[in-house]
């Protein structure tokens, strides 16, 4: 028997695996929602459910196994084409998945029995009904026969033909003039085997001899070749023909089974479909290239379909190759990932952080050393530490697509609840970001997406009135931009009405009546605590909580959020996040004895300027004809002592805000390991964290986002303080 420890370990593994499988199953359902015929999605759904049943069985959670078994039976029917999949059935599939989720939760909560057998029984009844009614439908089988039929047309069953290669040639009119003689191909083929049948296709010959140009080629050939040869050998006969002919080579039907065997026996590497077919000798490199060209000409088609349609390969072979591919992928998918407890990962990152600091200290010390060898070694060490740092951080990177995919369901359900039709458009799913970030960005995204559906999208009637498609679109997009991650949540709804926000803000005493504020500032008001413009409170959103918590969450991630409002056409919430929370490229500056770090990606330029030009704590400088708000760190942090003779202005930019930060000295780039400030200092404005320098001194990391907002707010008051920065 297992002891408690082992049992707990098993249970934990099961839970995390089950969650992953459920997620995969849900993703497959989302795919099926887009395309009910998506064979790959059905297969993957089935595999997920099947594996889930297996692992529940290992743990002996019978009530999970029992229900999952019924679900699996249904999916077998769907997969084999006995049960047609429609949206109603898809809905049932979703509900079954929910049920499994509940059951697993119950099981992991320690329950021995189904907490709600009634609910389970209802679903089981429905599953059985569907299976009974679907079993008589021969739809899919017909389809299969048809498919086989197209292949047979080319090589009808007959003993000899069964064993013969079939070669189909159609020539370009210019063939003769290009110096080719098809008769010579036939002679060559005759050397590879026996030409059992040559059919001369003369359909294209003009009826009227006057139209006949004897130097043009009007005919084609269908050839059956009996011989022990390969597709590549046959193709070689036509090597120089290139575009002058359409060539199809089909292997003997009797060999198809052999080829299929060959595909199954291929080594288990992750190959593209084309590679598998080429390796099995069913497709030649050249055909693959043609197939790929065809595929790129017809967007959205799969290579398998293209090569079958072009009669390069028999459909059965493509089917087998696809199965091979997905089974290998699944196996590799399992082998290629290593599960690591996240605290171990955090520990590693911390240690790498310490290593970076130590290496930095080493470099500083080596610089002062007279021994060239020491500083050389130190440089080398730093380079390695640098790459370790990068690999360690990459370990934490995950694709955002998985998070995005969780929204399919949310959108469908929120849309249904509000009587709106909503489509989710996902872009940039392969954009990577820190795992912690992914976990913490989900909640704010949920708020934003709900908000977009509830407040952003108009009702279907209103949309039709203004000439938009009835179905609204919510787009989730992610991409990297100058060292930051940008995540966009946009909708094609009515946009935000700034006047209504301003009016509401005045009602709530957030803004003085008649105040002169620009549109972006007005829009930012919706992030104010307790602010909601919804006329009615729906149960989706509109209770005045949400947007301020979105802002708080994003601030917590050292990110910013801006609103791109296009009245009448929609609205886009753009979130900018740092790539990682742990280590950043910093720019070290100092004021008096105190060091500060500015995130390097936000620095746009540095200007040296005499102290007397900028005596004020804040104001505007003129930089190349543009007014630039600035802030003196000496004043901001109340540092004692007089300003240095020559001060430096670091120009920083985040989003569309730009400002100057006045400091005494610039020290250059530095690898900055971010150490969070203690609880007491969490609310310090302008400081986002601290770091330890190589010398052992502490430097504060400036929170440029909040500094920028303050600078721009404060300097709004007066423009009389404008001074020229450039002499």
């Amino acid at each position, binding site marked *: 028997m297992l002891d408690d420890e082992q049992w707990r370990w098993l249970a934990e593994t099961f839970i995390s695996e089950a969650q992953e499988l459920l997620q995969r199953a849900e993703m497959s359902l989302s795919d099926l929602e887009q395309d009910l015929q998506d064979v790959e999605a059905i297969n993957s759904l089935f595999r997920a459910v099947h594996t889930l049943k297996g692992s529940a069985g290992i743990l002996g959670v019978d009530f999970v196994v029992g229900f999952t078994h019924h679900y699996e039976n249904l999916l077998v029917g769907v997969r084999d084409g006995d049960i047609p999949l429609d949206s109603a059935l898809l809905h049932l599939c979703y509900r079954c998945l929910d049920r499994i989720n509940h059951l697993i939760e119950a099981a992991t909560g320690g329950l021995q029995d189904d907490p709600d057998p009634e609910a389970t029984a209802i679903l089981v009844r429905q599953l059985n009904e569907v299976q009974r009614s679907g079993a008589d439908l021969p739809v899919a089988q017909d389809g299969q026969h048809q498919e086989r039929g197209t292949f047979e047309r080319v090589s009808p069953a007959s003993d000899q033909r069964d064993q013969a290669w079939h070669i189909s040639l159609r020539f370009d009119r210019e063939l003769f003039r290009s110096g080719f003689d098809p008769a010579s191909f036939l*002679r060559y083929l005759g050397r590879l085997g026996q030409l059992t049948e040559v059919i001369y296709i003369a359909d294209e010959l003009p009826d009227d001899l006057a139209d006949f140009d004897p130097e043009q080629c009007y005919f084609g050939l269908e050839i059956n070749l009996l011989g022990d040869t390969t597709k590549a050998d046959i193709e070689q006969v036509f090597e120089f023909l290139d575009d002058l002919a359409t060539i199809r080579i089909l292997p003997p039907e009797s060999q198809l089974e052999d080829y299929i065997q060959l595909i199954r026996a291929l080594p288990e590497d992750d190959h593209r479909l084309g590679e598998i077919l080429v390796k099995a000798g069913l497709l030649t490199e050249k055909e693959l290239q043609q197939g790929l060209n065809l595929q790129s000409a017809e967007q959205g088609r799969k290579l398998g379909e293209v090569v079958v349609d072009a009669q390069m390969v028999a459909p059965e072979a493509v089917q087998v190759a696809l199965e091979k591919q997905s089974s290998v992928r699944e196996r590799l998918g399992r082998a290629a990932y290593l599960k690591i407890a996240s605290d171990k990962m955090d520990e590693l990152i911390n240690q790498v952080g310490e290593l970076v600091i130590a290496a930095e200290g080493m470099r500083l010390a080596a610089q002062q050393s007279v021994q060239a060898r020491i500083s050389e070694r130190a440089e080398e060490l730093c380079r390695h530490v640098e790459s370790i740092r990068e690999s360690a951080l990459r370990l934490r990177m995950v694709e955002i697509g998985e998070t995005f995919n969780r929204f399919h369901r949310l959108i469908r359900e929120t849309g249904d609840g509000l009587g709106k039709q909503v489509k989710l458009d996902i872009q940039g799913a392969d954009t990577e970001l820190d795992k912690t970030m992914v976990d913490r960005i989900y909640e704010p995204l949920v708020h934003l997406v709900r908000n977009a559906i509830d407040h952003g999208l108009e009702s279907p009637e209103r949309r039709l009135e203004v000439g938009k498609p009835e179905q609204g679109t919510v787009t989730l997009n992610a991409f990297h931009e100058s060292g930051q991650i940008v995540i966009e949540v946009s909708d094609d709804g009515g946009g935000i009405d700034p006047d209504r926000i301003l009016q509401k803000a005045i009602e709530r005493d957030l803004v003085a009546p008649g105040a002169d504020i620009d549109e972006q500032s007005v829009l930012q008001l919706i992030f104010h605590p307790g602010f909601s413009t919804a006329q009615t409170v729906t149960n989706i959103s509109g209770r005045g909580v949400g947007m301020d918590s979105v802002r708080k969450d994003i601030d917590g991630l050292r990110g910013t959020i801006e609103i791109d409002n296009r009245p009448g056409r929609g609205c886009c919430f753009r979130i900018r996040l740092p790539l990682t929370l742990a280590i950043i490229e910093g720019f070290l500056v100092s004021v008096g004895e105190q060091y500060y770090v500015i995130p390097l990606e936000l620095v746009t330029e540095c200007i040296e300027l005499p102290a007397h030009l900028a005596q004020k704590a804040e104001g505007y400088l003129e930089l190349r004809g543009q007014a630039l708000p600035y802030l003196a760190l000496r004043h901001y942090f109340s540092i004692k002592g007089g300003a240095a003779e020559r001060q430096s202005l670091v120009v920083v930019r985040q989003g569309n805000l730009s400002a100057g930060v006045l400091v005494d000295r610039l020290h250059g780039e530095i690898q900055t390991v971010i150490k969070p400030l203690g609880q007491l200092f969490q609310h310090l404005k302008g400081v986002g964290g601290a770091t330890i320098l190589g010398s052992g001194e502490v430097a504060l990391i400036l929170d440029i986002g909040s500094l920028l907002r303050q600078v721009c707010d404060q300097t709004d008051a007066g423009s009389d303080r404008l001074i020229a920065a450039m002499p």
Partner: protein
Amino acid sequence: MDVSEPGAGELTVVISEDLCIYEIAQLHDQLLPRLAGGQKIQLDLGAVAECDSAGLQWLLALRAWARSSGVTLSFEPLSDAVRELVDLCQVQSLLGLQTVIPADMGAC
């Protein structure tokens, strides 16, 4: 090429040139105006030393024309070169010729 009219509506065309891509256009241009009025045409290919696919295609085009115009067209005799190509492309029936089963295939 030598064209003679042994009787009314009868044409005998003796081709001694090669039936290849280099000659075929010229042969076609020469023969085309002479075909009008011919009801029974015999193409003598006994002296053709070389024949390629363009030449064979020309013969097939003539045969197709003859059939659609109700003209009797025969290829008699054939040189070895023409016979070899006809057999290779298995177009005996298209040309209205007797199918000759090659010895090696007759055996199987």
